[in-house]
């Protein structure tokens, strides 16, 4: 690994408070191409502009706090390498997520997403067997050896509630009440057979039929949730139930 640093210009969306006029500020810094966008943002905050606000916590994709738009595409800044989004002497444009209320600069209020996840009682932890974890995307669960005491392993689910899918979704762009990819995925994971309340919600005005198959949610999901696949599977399940193919 070379220690050569790159000169990169960050073009960052600035806005103080939800009602003020946004503008962009440019910061040119020296940064290692193997570092992550979030490291650059933190560097800028530490040495260039203390007034910058941005969300972050775990820096390794388990918390979902650092979602933002990098060159127009939704990314977790903590896992996006500088080398993957620009070149030496290049630029990186950073904007807050779309379809959420702005708090300031790169910070949005993810509250609406968390509240909807709460309303569909999305599980905070799940049995390992309920969540396949092999490979990219949805694949059958790999056999995991039983625990020493025969109990189930418990794990945190794939969805980290980062809001990238909601930001990328064209339906969420103009309908704030649409449940959105993450929430529909949370309904799918729980099963509509076991949860008639979720079946009613998924088959409602804010449910699965409002998806326009842009598949942007799955394209930007950093955590293998594949919400688009889950929405389509929900459709299949709902059609089967309503047509009584399956009780």
């Amino acid at each position, binding site marked *: 690994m070379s220690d050569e640093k790159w000169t990169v210009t960050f073009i960052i969306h600035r806005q103080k408070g939800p009602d003020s006029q946004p503008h962009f500020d440019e910061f040119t810094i020296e940064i290692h191409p193997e570092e992550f966008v979030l490291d650059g943002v933190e560097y800028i905050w530490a040495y260039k502009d203390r007034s910058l606000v941005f969300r972050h916590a775990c820096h390794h994709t388990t918390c979902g706090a650092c979602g933002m738009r990098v060159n127009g595409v939704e990314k977790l800044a903590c896992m996006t390498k500088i080398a993957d989004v620009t070149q030496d002497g290049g630029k990186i444009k950073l904007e807050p997520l779309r379809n959420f209320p702005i708090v300031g600069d790169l910070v949005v209020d993810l509250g609406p997403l968390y509240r909807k996840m709460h309303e569909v009682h999305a599980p905070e932890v799940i049995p390992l067997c309920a969540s396949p974890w092999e490979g990219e995307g949805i694949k059958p669960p790999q056999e995991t050896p039983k625990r020493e005491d025969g109990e189930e392993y418990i794990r945190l689910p794939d969805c980290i509630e980062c809001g990238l899918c909601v930001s990328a979704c*064209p339906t969420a762009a103009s309908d704030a009440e649409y449940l959105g990819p993450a929430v529909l995925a949370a309904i799918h994971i729980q099963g509509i057979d076991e949860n008639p309340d979720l079946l009613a919600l998924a088959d409602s005005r804010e449910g699965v039929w409002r998806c326009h198959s842009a598949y942007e949610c799955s394209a930007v999901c950093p955590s293998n949730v594949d919400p688009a696949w889950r929405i389509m599977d929900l459709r299949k399940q709902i059609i089967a139930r309503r047509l009584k193919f399956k009780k």
Partner: protein
Amino acid sequence: MLSREQQGLNWLLQWFDPRGRSIGGLAFILNRITALGLVLYLYLHLYYLRQLTMGPQVWNAFIDSAENSPWIGIGELFVIAGGLIHGLNGLRIALNSFNIAVPYQKQLFYGLFTLALIGIAFFAVHMFGA
């Protein structure tokens, strides 16, 4: 949530702005544009067909004026292109809605879109060729 006023026409931009979109997003943009175009055409078409009831002179004069305008031919090709793109992509969405081939939605789009392009080329040659 942003109020309607703060949002402005942002939603329109988000529906149709192709920057940063993946294949599925581009397919959505195409689908929505062709849908709106086809609806416009459908109702204009129905409206102009009314002239068939006004006898041969009126209708033939209408056709003659249309034939003389190069825009009509191009417009017709647009309708055919829109119909092909919307129809073939519609097949993809319909299949996907029964959870068929969702992991292959990109390949499906490439395939069907190629088919649409071939169709458009065929009609273009048919209409303007020779």
